[in-house]
């Protein structure tokens, strides 16, 4: 049997999403500063040298030390950490990327060499190198750093919008994909914004003075200009994402909208602080404010990455590979033989192997995106039905492509991990309240009143007999609909709840 699922699974207690976010968000927050900060340094140095502004030059020298310690050390190594972590969390996805983009990464590496050499020479060169040569090195740094963004932007955007590559397999189709240019401008804006925020943090340590006023205002302008470019180009970026992708994401999950809202809130926060303490009260730009604005900037970036990741669900490479590393190209194979015969690494516990391969990338049993609350008090049949129809449920999840037998094995595995008491006991509920819980658990994953796949029009206003009839034929109502397998107590409570809705009860 051909082995297509080539990797073991790192069954770490922490959610993969959290682990990835820790490394990725920290890295991008520094790496974008590494680019914008490079531009800031040379532009500010040019102006300072023209005006023979020694105070400003001293500040820039201090900033460049901070810059090197943050970007060359922390930025570079957290960049490497992303390699390490994606290889652990999604080796199959990483393998796809590396085979398609190895020369892209190799090109980025050449820019990285220039960038790091230039950063070191620039930092150590303040007292040693002539002004002209120092600035030349500064410009070389910035150009190399921005070009490395140019390259990595092509790879990152490919994962969300692979564009024509899906048909052609051509490198250039994958690189210059539908969101490439908008993302490049967006990320350039972020670089400028972060240059301002980091420079403000360093400036915040200065005592209130005329110089601090000038400095803080100057830095705030960088932050504001960057923020404006970022938010405008974000609209372009969102518009460049194909409708099919956006619609699928927004229909099935609140996350994209929530993350956009968060971005707007954080943008408003950053803008308020920059205008108030950056432009109007620059002398009062205290370190606490500087740290606060940095936290807002980090939160903004986290929200943006959250948006990008949520829109891309359920894929790691859109339309090509699911987030759990299952490649669509082998869908027929898995549907015919199941996952197990195609796994290179098995533990002897098939249920656990199927759980890890299918669910564990995004779910734990009780921690991150837990499954226990979803399945507590239910039964194997219901769990099996949920597995089979998981791709039509809310949350934008990948289809389970395994065989019927594997569905049963996985359902049994999950059933053994959940609370087997009756729902009424687990939640201490009865009557309509219990019925609501039954609805949330058994119907809610796919039908939300007033929300995702709303069925209130056909559900509200029936009589007890009609509800009973409907529950009896639930599995005939749709291909992915599971049978109603709750007991009589659950059935009665559910009908009581649904009946209460037609009498003005709240869903």
């Amino acid at each position, binding site marked *: 049997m051909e082995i297509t699922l080539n990797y073991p699974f790192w069954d770490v207690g922490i959610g993969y999403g959290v682990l990835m976010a820790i490394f990725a968000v920290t890295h991008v927050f520094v790496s974008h500063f590494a680019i914008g900060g490079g531009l800031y340094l040379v532009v500010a140095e040019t102006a300072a040298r023209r005006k023979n502004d020694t105070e400003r030059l001293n500040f820039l020298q201090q900033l460049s030390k901070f810059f090197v310690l943050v970007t060359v050390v922390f930025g570079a190594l957290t960049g490497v950490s992303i390699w*390490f972590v994606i290889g652990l969390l999604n080796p199959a996805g990483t*393998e796809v990327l590396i085979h398609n983009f190895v020369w892209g990464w190799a090109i980025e590496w050449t820019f990285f060499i220039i960038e790091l050499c230039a950063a070191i020479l620039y930092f150590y060169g303040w007292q040693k190198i002539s002004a002209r040569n120092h600035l030349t090195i500064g410009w070389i740094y910035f150009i190399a750093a921005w070009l490395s963004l140019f390259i990595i932007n092509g790879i990152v955007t490919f994962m969300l919008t692979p564009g024509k590559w899906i048909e052609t397999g051509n490198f250039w189709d994958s690189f210059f994909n539908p969101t490439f240019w908008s993302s490049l401008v967006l990320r350039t804006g972020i670089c400028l914004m972060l240059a301002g925020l980091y420079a403000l943090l360093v400036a915040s340590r200065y005592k209130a003075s005329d110089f601090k006023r000038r400095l803080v205002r100057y830095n705030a302008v960088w932050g504001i200009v960057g923020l404006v470019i970022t938010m405008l180009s974000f609209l372009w970026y969102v518009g460049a994402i194909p409708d099919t992708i956006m619609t699928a994401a927004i229909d099935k999950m609140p996350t994209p909208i929530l993350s956009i809202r968060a971005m707007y809130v954080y943008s408003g926060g950053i803008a308020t602080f920059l205008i108030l303490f950056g432009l109007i009260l620059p002398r009062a730009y205290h370190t606490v404010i500087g740290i606060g604005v940095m936290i807002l900037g980090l939160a903004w970036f986290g929200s943006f990455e959250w948006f990008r990741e949520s829109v891309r669900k359920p894929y790691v490479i859109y339309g090509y590979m699911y987030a759990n590393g299952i490649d669509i190209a082998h869908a027929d194979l898995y549907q015919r033989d199941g996952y197990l015969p195609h796994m290179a690494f098995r533990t002897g516990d098939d249920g656990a192997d199927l759980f890890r391969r299918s669910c564990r990338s995004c779910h734990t049993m009780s921690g991150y995106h837990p499954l226990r609350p979803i399945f507590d008090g239910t039964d194997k049949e219901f769990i099996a039905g949920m597995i089979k129809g998981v791709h039509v449920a809310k949350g934008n999840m990948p289809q389970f492509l395994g065989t019927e037998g594997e569905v049963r094995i996985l359902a049994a595995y999950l059933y053994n991990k959940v609370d087997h008491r009756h729902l009424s006991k687990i939640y201490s509920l009865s009557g309509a309240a219990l019925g609501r819980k039954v609805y949330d658990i058994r119907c809610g994953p796919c039908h939300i009143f007033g929300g995702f796949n709303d069925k209130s029009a056909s559900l509200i206003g029936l009589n007890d007999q009609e509800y009973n009839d409907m529950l009896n034929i639930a599995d005939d109502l749709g291909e992915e609909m599971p049978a109603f397998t709750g007991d009589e107590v659950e059935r009665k409570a559910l009908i009581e709840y649904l009946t209460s809705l037609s009498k003005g009860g709240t869903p």
Partner: protein
Amino acid sequence: MNLPDYNFLPAPLWVITVLHLVTLMLHFAAMNFLVGGVIVILFGKFKNRWNDPTAQKFIKLFPIAMMATITLGIAPLLFLQLVYPRQAYAAAIVSGWFWLLIVVVAIIVYYFLYAASFSQDSSRRWIALYLSVALVGFVYISYVYSSTFSLAERPDLVKLIYTHTQSGFTLNPDVGSYILRWLHMILGAITVGGFFVGLLGMNNPQAYNVGKQFFLNGMIVTMLVGLGYLFTLDEILLSFMRSPAVWFLMVSIAMSLGALRFFFTRRFAVSGIMLLVSLLGMVTIRHYVRLLHLEGVYDPAAYAIKPQWSVFALFLNCFVIAIVAVWYMLRLNHHSIDAAHDRLES
């Protein structure tokens, strides 16, 4: 479903292998400067250790050497992942926590090296502590690397480990198969570190002598340990002796001895080049050992080749541009420093 296949190499295997080996050699050269340098500076018989100009020079250079080690380590890791992703990732996954911790340790080490580098006269006493912490970090990183990459050559063992535990808390349990490999790498670093101390201290008799001692003694011990490692190859030893690797071994030994000879006659350029060729030989031997371990299980030559020549050409151009840009910046740096000296003298 008719989707693009990713099971291909975007250039002929030999191109990728050459790039992998050359960049790995450069990575090892930088790493040897760094790790070997730290060990020699910490344990070499210097009088007034922290005031010795060569030691000071090294301490200033350590953060830059760390930067070079990391930067030059990215490319070989990239090419390794391209050709051996299934072996490398699988081994990394079963050692997941140890593997991931490498980055955290490297960040700490980097900052300690900067702390040593920024130390002023008044805080020199801390340098020993900073460098010792860095050394502990190097030991950790190098050991986990040895464990992981030796495990990558044993897919059967990875599978066995995975059936018992999936939490990523396992290093390669067959310590005997790689402990000498790891030791050989550390001792090799000390040897090359001795060369660099002698090179940078060529006009400083004390530093030159310290470097010479480490270079000579390090090489003897490294060769003995390397020989010992060969005997741990067990079932592939015979194949190894019949493979081209054995010729690379001969050349590497000859080059190492030649490097030693020219170091003693103070012809550092020739000695350095021979040392570099010897390093290239060593990484090539590592490559052959990997192939022999994986023989019958995995053959990288089985990959389909779908060259991306246009991107590859762009990479080569960028690589040349990078070399020119670095050379140009170093020139700007030196010209400016020379001009400053001239101004001071006049």
